[in-house]
């Protein structure tokens, strides 16, 4: 995917003193190609932190993408570039393909995650939890965000599908995408992370790799 470009010294994503419901201040730097993994006990606010970065919940603080403040753009513009994918995806139309745009890209990615192409034309109601989760990820990737915020993306996947998904994510970060990943899967965190943080009591602590 050639649309990404490395920007000299500016970081891809800079988060400064972000505060909101899960506490704070949170600060975080993410370079192009980085994968930051955030772990921590359930209910501590990891999902809320990702939602704040995507500006989906009320928050205060400075967040920059390639040096441009998110206040300088509309919220939809921001979220098209810094995209949050929930653990349980919501679907607004009856069939999978109605959510996929561009559909050609979705057809290319589906087999990569072990999904039959025919599934793209299935009714959403017939999907299994694991299929929904993978299609929810595809739905985001094909819109070509610069940063992906993934909330337990493999919680409903078996070992093989998980590894397929990780291979795809690695390919995307190598092409310059930034990734912030919340996961409870220790092995996955070790496989993907370029940096790791532990979240506890309203703040982030960097973990030695």
């Amino acid at each position: 995917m050639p649309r990404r470009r490395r920007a000299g010294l500016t970081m891809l994503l800079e988060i400064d003193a972000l505060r909101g419901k899960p506490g704070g201040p949170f600060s975080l730097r993410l370079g192009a190609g980085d994968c930051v993994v955030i772990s921590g006990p359930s209910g501590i606010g990891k999902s809320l932190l990702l939602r704040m970065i995507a500006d989906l919940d009320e928050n205060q603080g400075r967040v920059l993408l390639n040096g441009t403040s998110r206040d300088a753009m509309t919220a939809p513009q921001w979220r098209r570039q810094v995209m949050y994918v929930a653990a349980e995806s919501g679907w607004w139309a009856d069939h999978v393909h109605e959510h996929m745009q561009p559909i050609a890209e979705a057809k290319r990615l589906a087999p990569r995650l072990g999904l039959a192409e025919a599934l793209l034309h299935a009714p959403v109601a017939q999907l299994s939890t694991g299929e929904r989760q993978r299609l929810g990820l595809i739905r985001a990737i094909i819109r070509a965000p610069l940063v992906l915020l993934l909330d337990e993306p493999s919680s409903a996947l078996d070992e093989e599908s998980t590894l397929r998904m990780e291979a795809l994510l690695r390919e995307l970060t190598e092409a310059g995408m930034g990734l912030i990943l919340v996961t409870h899967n220790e092995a996955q965190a070790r496989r993907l992370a370029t940096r790791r943080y532990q979240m506890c009591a309203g703040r982030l602590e960097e973990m030695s790799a």
Partner: protein
Amino acid sequence: MTNVSPPISLSAADLAIGASLVLFSACLSLALSLRLHRALLWAAARMVAQLLLVGFVLRIVFELSNPWVTLLAALLMAAAASFEAGARQEHKLPAPWHYITGGSATMFATLIITVLALVTALRPHPWYNAREALPLTGIILGNVMNAVSLALNSFFTTAHRERAAIEARLALGESRYLALHNIAAHSIRTALIPTINVMSAAGLITMPGIMTGQLLAGMDPVAAAKYQILLMFLIVGGNCLGSFAAVHVAIHRLVDRRDRLRLDRLRNRLG
């Protein structure tokens, strides 16, 4: 209105015959222990008191024939409608916004439709003449109030239920209008279905209230039908405008300036 025969005047005895039906129903409820008699008698008593009161008040307003008094009466009706438009909602906004949302949509649609009808089709002299203006305001207001109430109830309930789907669209970078489009369209449709049903059934299944009243009061059937047709058009227009406005205001309340879904601004009817 050229061929009006003298209107039927009802005596107290005539009304007593009608009232005996209510008493009979109450007795039936007592005998079969339906436990409806209290509610039934109370509602009947309220209805009699309210209608007689309105009759007397209107008599005074008509005699005064002062535009300010007419306006005051219309405003009181609108305030009551705004209050009722928000009653019985499953999910609603907290106090000031609750009335503002329902009230602004109801009043906006009623005002436009009523003034339009008074200055074009009906043209009483003067155009704000209370005898025409107030009943017309009442009919439009009552219908718009219903449509607004249905639209808001559907909008808030569906938005609450479809939270995951709406947030998925917002997270993918869609605007509030795209993310809420399905729900807004569904709510407006819900609000207009009863109106469309009434229009389709008009005359065949039900005789609309106004036409019935005018026939009983001696008006020519074709003239009464024309009058009813005009009213139906006004009601459809009012309901359409009202539900559009209600959903529009509701979207702006349920989404903040950064296009975040703010279901935290809703209260459950129990909470």
